[in-house]
């Protein structure tokens, strides 16, 4: 097996969202709806090695989430390919697969099963998940009564207990209190020590700089810079300050 754990090659994604224009008589009579092509990812290529934390930074709408979705396999690109070696866990949004009316206990099962775990694996790890999320007292309460911190702790705990080799992470470490943030950072470092891989999308330049080995900067779907995390973050910072003299 090669050292690369995520390979993205020439990835190209375009959307054709429906554009709303002021309806004129001619347009409403015509049968064609107005579409405008938006290129979300324009021939993006990079590779992430095993044991590496790789950051993706860029402005809103730069294509970061689209990129993660392609790597996660939930969005089919228009061209190119994304290859992932190893068991993947995604944390693109918090609480995916959870039903708020149900208890934390049932949601641990639902979330784990949704992510591809088997029921007996979840049973084995159940106590660990609860303990890690610091939810011992609240686990039999409906999740809609949870605070957002409790909610995200449970989601994170389920995702980390999947034993992923590759973790796809989107901007969620900003939730939870300081001590839990520290705990989640520690869990991710452990993953890296076990030769796991993390693809990390964030607006928080500080955490990318601190946590990631390498990074890319996406600008309107194009790779504007690639290299060591601190280098890429520096370039990105410069461009942002240049725009705001």
């Amino acid at each position, binding site marked *: 097996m090669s050292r690369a754990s995520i390979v993205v090659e020439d990835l190209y994604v375009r959307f054709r969202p429906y554009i709303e224009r002021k309806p004129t008589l001619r347009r409403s009579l015509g049968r064609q709806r107005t579409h405008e092509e938006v290129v979300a990812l324009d021939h993006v290529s990079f590779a992430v090695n095993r044991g590496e934390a790789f950051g993706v930074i860029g402005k809103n709408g730069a294509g970061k989430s689209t990129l993660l979705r392609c790597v996660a396999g*939930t*969005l089919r690109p228009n061209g190119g390919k994304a290859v992932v070696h190893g068991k993947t866990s995604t944390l*693109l*949004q918090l609480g995916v*697969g959870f039903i708020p009316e*149900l208890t934390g206990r*049932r949601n641990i099962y639902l979330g784990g*099963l949704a*992510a591809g775990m088997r029921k007996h694996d979840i049973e084995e790890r159940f106590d660990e998940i609860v303990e890690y999320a610091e939810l011992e007292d609240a686990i039999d309460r409906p999740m809609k009564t949870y605070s957002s911190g409790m909610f995200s702790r449970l989601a994170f705990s389920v995702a980390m207990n999947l034993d992923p080799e590759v973790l796809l992470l989107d901007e969620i470490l900003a939730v939870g209190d300081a001590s839990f943030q520290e705990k989640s950072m520690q869990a991710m470092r452990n993953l890296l020590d076990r030769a796991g891989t993390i693809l990390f999308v964030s607006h928080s330049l500080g955490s990318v700089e601190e946590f990631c080995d390498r990074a890319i900067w996406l600008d309107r779907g194009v790779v504007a810079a690639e290299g060591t995390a601190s280098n890429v973050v520096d370039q990105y910072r410069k461009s942002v300050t240049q725009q705001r003299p």
Partner: protein
Amino acid sequence: MTQTTTPTYYTRRIVYYVKELWRRREFIWFLAMGNFKARNASTALGLFWWVLNPVLLSLVYWFVFGLIFPGNRDIIYLMSGMFVFHFTAQSLTGGANAILQNSKLLTNLKFPRLILPMANLIEALVGFTVSLGVLLVFSLVLRGFIPGASVLLLLAAVPLHVLFNLGLASMAARLAVPFRDINNFMPYFTRIWLYLSPIIWPLSFLESENASSFARFAEFNPMFSLISVYRAALIPLAEDGVVIGPTPFDPAMLGQFAVWAVVVGFVGIGLFVRFEGKIARHL
């Protein structure tokens, strides 16, 4: 474990798809039961609504078409048809919604998308099973009838019914994801289908003078053959509340519905699976 995402999709491999569905069977079950519990979590009667819903529905129609406009006073006949129809209608409307309401799951996790309409179908199937029990109780209390070996017909009817419903739900989901208008149209479609099926009108209506040219085609309605198989399995033939005997079974009806189930089932599932790679683009 290596996963490659390219413009062409893995679902072309049928065996892999079916294996993946099987591997995820616990998820399907938990999702079905979870949705069901969530739906009932904030009502006082909770699970009891499963029994109450189909019974109330039947009583409403019995009140209107049995008492106000007398056409069919046999409530057992009406209930049997209504429960069978209700299961299909639920799968149909729920299947289309299953994709749209679970967009968060779909954009985040990779799994065979057919799981969502399947979970919805299983939720409806559990309700349907309960309602068949209710039907037996009503038919015992009101008619003193207990079905014999004919209940074994359910072994053929229920699986075919499930296949048929899954096909319909898949077709609805396939259409409703790019064209949301389908969802608005659905209540009218199910309503007209209900009136075209032998539920509120008695079978004798087809031979009466009032029957329009529609009567000639009534039998081709899949609901017609399906309901007649269920009736042969479960309920007595009665005239003015007096039991004449078990409902006679017509094997041609079972055969006819089997054809419907296989065609609708596989065409629907096939259309859906071919489309599922594009779902993420429509959410």
